[in-house]
């Protein structure tokens, strides 16, 4: 096989993260491309969670799809949740110890899910126990069900290593790693490397894991004969980064010169700041090359405002948050805009509105970021389509912020944030630090901080030697309050004109990326993490004779309107499709607002789950067949 989808399900806190990490590291070590998404409830222990992973021998995967080739269930609940996610000819790994478990015994399942699953069970003629379901899967759906007695396996381990029963439980997740490794023929060296990488500092645990995983893998190999054996990888890489979106953005910021990161804990943004905490003392070869202040504040109001304060001193300052936090940052954002402060807000969109689905994803905050805060001031809103882009954009965000002295919102979604991917190392030739007209040191105390002679006034920072004033009130060139109408007219316009300046400076082609040769006959428009799925869907569709192009919007403010208009109008209006993870078609509305072009066809999803390849392909076909104007996607548990 060149391409495999794997799903691992288990309850929150039962270690599927570890399984996934070990599998992903081992696969990466062997040179495969991996992309893996984690779905979990807003809960610490007990609710169902799962890892959905794609492995490729040919490329770095850009999308996830269903059904999966292998589904490994750590508990009964997982079996009930995902039995219909397995492809016919696929493999189900489960615990025979839960065979007798009936769905109604599983109290952690929400009633809405339970009743839907129960009716599915009835439809396929399964009873309400794991056993009866497994039988039906085997008999009617051609699925190979591999029942293992997890407790017997753990008993062996606990005996061999003298572990208490409860201790041994913590190795349960390694059973499924072993089983998967056996089915796909993952080699021992890679597994062993991956285990050391995870448990290197605890050799006993590493050793037990190795033994357990190898043991199970061998047994599976023996009984089933590596039925899904992965081909040797054709990827041409010597080393890769294995990172989540949070990780790579955190790294990008550090490379970009981050020296101040404030945050208040919130899913799915916190992980970025946790990474920064690890790198507070920026040490290379034991020598510190700088220090990052990571400041956990009392709330998001303090997070944004302290970052603005920090930015005034000349550090590259940022804060990371998601919807509820950003809602509290709105007033601060306006102050930064008014005072021309370069501050970067990394905004991880989750499912809204309000507390919403805190651990699920969306792309539903675009319009909010564009117009948040009262009054009018320039801001830049930048979005990234994948891990590597996010890395470069994190640096770019600082450059734009400093060069144009504006707040920059870097808009990410939870899908990208929480997906782990193997990616190549970034290319340093693409990286530049541009601090614009930032003045770190001057002998001149007298400065007109808001000199109207140019749109971007030179910016001596606090502590540089200059004396400057700032105020959220309308101000004169010195930064003192004035209500004079003509100063108002000019100062307001000076700020506003930055948008035009940025629009003129940054090539439109960098702000909206066109993927196509020019001879395509339909166009998909999208942004953020749907990028990979769209590109893969077009590739698949091409095989069936459809020829589509993709327009990825990267910068929403200032929007590259001329380029977008040109591209949109080169397609038949019936064949331009907007794909977004929201209900309002927000990017399409931004386009309409700026260009007057109204997109007519939509593929939308707002269940909080990512858009999957197979449903997008289907959706595009439905649109192209002109049966539907709006396709609503809903796949995923």
């Amino acid at each position, binding site marked *: 096989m060149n391409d495999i989808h794997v799903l691992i399900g288990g309850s929150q806190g039962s270690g599927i993260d570890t399984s996934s990490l070990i599998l992903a590291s081992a696969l990466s070590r*062997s040179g495969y491309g991996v992309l893996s998404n984690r779905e979990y409830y807003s809960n610490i222990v007990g609710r169902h969670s799962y890892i959905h992973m794609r492995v490729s021998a040919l490329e770095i995967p850009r999308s996830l799809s269903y059904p999966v080739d292998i589904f490994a269930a750590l508990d009964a609940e997982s079996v009930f949740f995902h039995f219909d996610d397995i492809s016919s000819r696929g493999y189900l790994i489960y615990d025979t110890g839960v065979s007798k478990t009936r769905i109604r015994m599983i109290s952690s399942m929400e009633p809405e899910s339970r009743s839907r699953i129960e009716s599915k069970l009835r439809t396929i003629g399964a009873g309400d126990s794991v056993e009866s379901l497994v039988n039906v899967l085997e008999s009617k759906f051609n699925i190979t069900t591999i029942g293992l007695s997890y407790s017997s396996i753990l008993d062996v381990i606990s005996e061999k290593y003298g572990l208490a029963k409860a201790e041994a439980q913590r190795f349960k997740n390694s059973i499924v790693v072993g089983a998967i490794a056996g089915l796909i023929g993952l080699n021992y060296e890679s597994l062993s490397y991956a285990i050391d990488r995870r448990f290197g500092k605890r050799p006993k645990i590493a050793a037990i894991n190795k033994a357990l995983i190898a043991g199970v893998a061998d047994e599976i190999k023996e009984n089933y004969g590596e039925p899904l054996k992965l081909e040797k990888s054709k990827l041409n890489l010597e080393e890769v980064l294995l990172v989540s979106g949070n*990780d790579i953005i955190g790294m990008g910021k550090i490379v970009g*010169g981050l020296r101040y990161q404030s945050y208040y804990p919130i899913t799915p943004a916190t992980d970025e700041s946790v990474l920064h905490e690890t790198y507070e003392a920026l040490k*290379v070869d034991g020598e510190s090359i700088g*220090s990052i202040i990571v400041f956990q504040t009392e709330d998001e109001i303090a997070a944004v405002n302290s970052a603005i304060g920090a930015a005034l*001193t000349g550090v590259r300052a940022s804060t990371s948050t998601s919807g509820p936090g950003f809602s509290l940052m709105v007033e601060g954002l306006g102050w930064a805009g008014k005072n021309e402060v370069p501050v970067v807000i990394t905004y991880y969109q989750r499912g809204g509105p309000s507390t919403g689905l805190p651990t699920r994803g969306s792309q539903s905050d675009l319009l909010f970021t564009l117009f948040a805060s009262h009054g009018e001031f320039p801001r830049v809103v930048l979005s990234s389509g994948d891990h590597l882009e996010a890395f470069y954009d994190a640096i770019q965000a600082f450059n734009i912020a400093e060069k144009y002295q504006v707040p920059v919102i870097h808009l990410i979604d939870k899908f990208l944030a929480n997906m782990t991917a193997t990616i190549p190392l970034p290319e340093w030739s693409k*990286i530049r630090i541009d601090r614009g007209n930032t003045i770190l040191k001057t002998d001149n105390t007298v400065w007109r901080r808001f000199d109207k002679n140019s749109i971007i006034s030179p910016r001596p920072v606090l502590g540089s030697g200059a004396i400057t004033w700032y105020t959220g009130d309308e101000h004169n060139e010195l930064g003192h309050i004035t209500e004079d109408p003509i100063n108002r007219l000019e100062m307001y316009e000076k700020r506003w004109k930055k948008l035009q300046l940025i629009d003129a400076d940054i090539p439109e082609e960098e702000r909206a990326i066109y993927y196509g040769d020019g001879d395509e006959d339909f166009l998909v428009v999208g942004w953020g993490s749907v990028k990979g799925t769209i590109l893969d869907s077009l590739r698949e569709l091409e095989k069936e004779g459809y020829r589509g192009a993709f327009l990825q919007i990267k910068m929403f403010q200032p929007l590259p309107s001329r380029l977008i208009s040109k591209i949109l109008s080169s397609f038949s209006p019936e064949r331009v499709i907007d794909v977004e993870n929201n209900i309002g078609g927000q990017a399409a509305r931004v386009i309409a607002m700026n260009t007057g072009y109204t997109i007519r066809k939509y593929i939308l999803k707002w269940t909080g789950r990512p858009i999957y390849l197979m449903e997008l392909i289907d959706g595009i076909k439905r649109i192209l067949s002109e049966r539907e104007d709006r396709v609503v996607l809903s796949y995923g548990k």
Partner: protein
Amino acid sequence: MASKSTFRTDVWIDWCPGCGDYGIVAAMSKAFSELNLDPSKLVVVSGIGCSGKTPHFIYANGVHTLHGRAIAFASGIKLANPELTVVVNGGDGDLLGIGVAHFVALGRRNLDITVILHNNQVYGLTKGQASPTLRRGDKTKSLPAPNMQDAVNPIALALSSGYTFIARGYALWVDHLKELIKQAIRHKGASLIDVLQPCVTYNDLYTTDYYKDKLYKLEDDPSWDPVVSRIEEVEDKMSKALAKSLEWGDRIPVGVFYVNPLIETYNERIAKRNPTYSIIPPAKQLIAKNNGEPIIGVEEFKKLFSDYIIKIVK
């Protein structure tokens, strides 16, 4: 033009004639001058309100922020460049009402910032509504009916939040206030000066007349020693300070209530975890080479993030 020696700009002060805020500006600029501060290394941060306008009248860097948020801005400034002297000016509504979360947080951190509270018991700039320091039952001329909420005691709140220098001044006793400001700035850690500031326009209860015969100086009692010299004294000095803070009637104390120089400042706490921090402030660190390349090149990147890098062995 404005001048360094007087620490005053030539911006016209648009406070009401007779406002206590004039005294605060006078005391501040004298204090700055006597401390011989470099105005370019001094940052006066304020919130919104009559008090919020203060930085515009002071010849030093001024950051006039948002209602209630001065401490948050100030914290970022101080953390990013600990070499700066940071002084916050805020109203009682500003610091103890809408902004009280930041007020409390600053104490808990003991970050080296001086907070000057313009305590006039009203929301001045919005026309005299009751502020959090106005007592229940009080009816200033600007109120339609007596105040329905109990007052916050700024000294008590500062004590329980962890401020390590706590004093009270009176806006009209400029020289006394000036000395308090000097001490507060010299003190390493979070300091609060609660300044009783008559608002001549809206507050006809707590007027200069009211204060005249009531105020007395703590330091006039030779036995008054607010300074914690050994950590065991904390509880005792704190409760004495607290008791003093409850005195409000015929006699109202001003002066230094509590000083604890033994608590690590937040900057020191950071430096412990991260020694580079104390050597070169983040605001002065180099992040790029002259040609624009980041100081973290590909090699540095690989070393820094080696935990995330996997070498492929096919």
